[in-house]
């Protein structure tokens, strides 16, 4: 066992917007330059780079990881691209963690980029080809359809109402009003969500996060290096990831077992026995409002079917007992797939350092979690950080 402690010492983030003029390379450069500035480092101090980016179809570039290398600072520094669909953003720092924890590198720049807007007529078209070419594509199924199936199943099994789920969208969009990079911060009501355009029943327009462009980056360092740059490192103390079968029709969609398995892996490493008590807050993956509830349960932050009650009672508010998505989440900040996941890890870092500004949670926080999700309802990625 040669595991070394790994610290986060800087993070950066671009605006999240529907159509940014910058190229993917430029977005990667901007985010990584901000992370270096925050860490007090220069490019030559970075020994390795991990890039996270999701479907190549968004940017319309084959071998997108290689395309982004120049922007991410990877020329001359060994670079790897990691890929677990929508879970990629949280998986990026997990890949960065093993670069440093292994002892092969002392520093690692993690960059996540997504530029969804180049895909015409709509980014959703990239998802037509995520389905099995023989069994599923002939059905004409879309990503929104299967989310609708999962949401319906979740509501049915636990007796949860659409209005209870809508509270998540209301909370997260309100939180995002305090995020300077957010795309869709807004003060809305449950009624607004219920009256928004029906896309695929029961999923409505305001239940869904938007397509976005954007990038995030963070700098990881070994303990020795971290202490040379900062008195306030934030430690990565748990990582976990899990990918379930691609045959999503073969399991009960009411509960994300793969998220639980990823969480158990991370909790074991971080010696977390009771996540509800041992953690102070969480950035939970919320591409849809019901997914926040679904994932809280998979992470064992709520009993099965119990997340809606916690939300209704205000526990998950920024000033609540257990804040969930104080950043505003994907529903409020935006959803440039891989960058959105890394945004969550950045938010945990900023919260733990007390640098979240108007978004800073009220209670003292020493330990937080970020979680990603992806592929065909099958990926869980979990990382825990502590001061």
């Amino acid at each position: 066992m040669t595991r070394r402690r790994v610290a986060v010492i800087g993070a950066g983030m671009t605006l999240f917007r529907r159509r940014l003029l910058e190229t993917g390379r430029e977005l990667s450069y901007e985010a990584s330059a901000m992370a270096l500035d925050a860490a007090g480092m220069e490019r030559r101090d970075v020994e390795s780079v991990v890039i996270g980016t999701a479907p190549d179809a968004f940017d319309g570039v084959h071998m997108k990881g290689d395309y982004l290398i120049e922007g991410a600072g990877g020329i001359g520094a060994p670079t790897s691209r990691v890929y677990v669909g929508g879970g990629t953003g949280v998986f990026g720092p997990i890949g960065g963690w093993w670069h440093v924890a292994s002892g092969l590198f002392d520093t690692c720049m993690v960059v996540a980029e997504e530029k969804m807007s180049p895909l015409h007529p709509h980014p959703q078209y990239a998802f037509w080809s995520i389905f099995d070419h023989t069994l599923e594509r002939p059905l004409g199924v879309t990503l929104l359809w299967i989310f609708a199936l999962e949401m319906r199943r979740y509501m049915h099994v636990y007796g949860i109402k659409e209005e209870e789920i809508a509270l998540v969208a209301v909370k997260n969009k309100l939180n995002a009003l305090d995020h300077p990079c957010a795309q869709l911060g807004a003060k809305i009501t449950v009624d607004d969500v219920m009256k928004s355009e029906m896309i695929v029943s029961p999923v409505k327009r305001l239940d869904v996060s938007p397509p976005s462009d954007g990038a995030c980056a963070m700098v990881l360092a070994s303990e020795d290096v971290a202490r040379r740059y900062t008195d306030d490192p934030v430690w990565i103390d748990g990582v976990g990831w899990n990918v379930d079968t691609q045959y999503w029709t073969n399991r009960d969609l009411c509960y994300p077992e793969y998220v639980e398995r990823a969480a158990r892996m991370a909790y074991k490493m971080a010696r977390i026995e009771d996540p509800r008590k041992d953690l102070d807050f969480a950035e939970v993956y919320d591409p849809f409002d019901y997914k926040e509830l679904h994932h809280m349960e998979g992470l064992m932050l709520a009993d099965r079917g119990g997340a809606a009650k916690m939300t209704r009672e205000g526990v998950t508010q920024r000033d609540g007992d257990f804040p969930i998505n104080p950043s505003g989440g994907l529903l409020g900040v935006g959803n440039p797939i891989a960058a959105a996941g890394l945004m969550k890890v950045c938010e945990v870092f900023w919260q733990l350092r007390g640098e979240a500004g108007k978004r800073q949670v009220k209670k003292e926080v020493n330990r937080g979690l970020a979680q990603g999700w992806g592929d065909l309802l099958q990926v869980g990625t979990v990382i825990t950080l502590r001061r």
Partner: protein
Amino acid sequence: MLRGSQPYLSCGHSARQMRRPAVGIVGVGAAGFKPALPEISTRELMFEAAALAYRDAGIDPRKEVDSFVTTSEDLWEGWSITDEMVPDQIGGAGRPVCTIPGDGITVLGNAVMQIESGVAQVVVLEAHSKASDVLDKEAVENLAQEPSLMRPLGMGADTLAALEMEAFLRLSGFSVADCDVVVENSRRRAMANPLASFGSKRRRGVSPSSEVISSPLRRADKAQYADAAVVVVLASKAWARKTKAEPVSVDGVAWGSSLPWFDGGHTAYAEYARSSFERAAKQAELKRGLGSLDLIEIDDTYSFKLLQHLVSLSRDKEEASTVLRGQGPALNPSGGSLAVGNLIEASALHRLYEAVLQLRGEGGRRQVKGAKSALVQSWRGVPTATGGVAILSVGA
């Protein structure tokens, strides 16, 4: 701008001190290796290679593997988010699985780091090519070009390769006739490799009738696409000791990217290959450069790239010439990509597979006598300047 200075390794290693990984290869499996395999799917191909590797390692993937690392690219696969379709057929469903879309040596490096970090003891690597399913391969290749400034020029991947070939030959002193020898040797070696589909006993170089794709690049200079899957089982030395496995040791592994030549990078040599070799050699404590090794499997996606890569790994022209004359380490005993085919993401793992067979004395008719150490070098293809190097040994 063509940059041709410093074609050979000229000084000591600049990389910081890195120790040798305590990791070894305990099982390998390969399947396919045909120009087209219409009768089986990608998943079936992966399953076959995985089953062979698990049998070779003597492990149950559902119980004894801690992590699975695969490599594939969306546009070659015809899937968006192609990583989603990998777990079932390799025994990874419900387990830690990830995709590292990249060079096979980069994948090996990440698996080594997972083991060295303590998060896993046994890691499975998988790579495959089902290129025969892709109707328009040139379209996929060309989509790898930078979209705003480069793609509108309308140059195909082979045109870029031809321009690099022209510059390399001019700066290096090698000639088209040297490329002929590379092709001839690869095809001859292929006759002894049951996995190679492109063998030939012809001894008069490249046929004058070989189509010129983009001068000076001819059809014969380019490896033809083929279908295959390769699976490698990697384990910590501690695990290997406990299970009494006899691993092939991974003494050094490094990867990296340099500026592509059209962005101002070198053409006389491949910086990515050189820097990777320097770092891997440092880990492996290689004292005499290529002269320390019994065999080398280096990238020959195009014939001139083999020469360029060899130059990049050599200390001087004499060392490169020695290898080409057959007086140094055995060069590409498998026949390389020109013999076996361009296996896309599986190319690097195929070279690794060949090195493992050779070091275990299982090379059959192409066995390099007494092979104890090997180097594997890889390249991701046009338009990248990305590649890696791994150094392996047995009996240390």
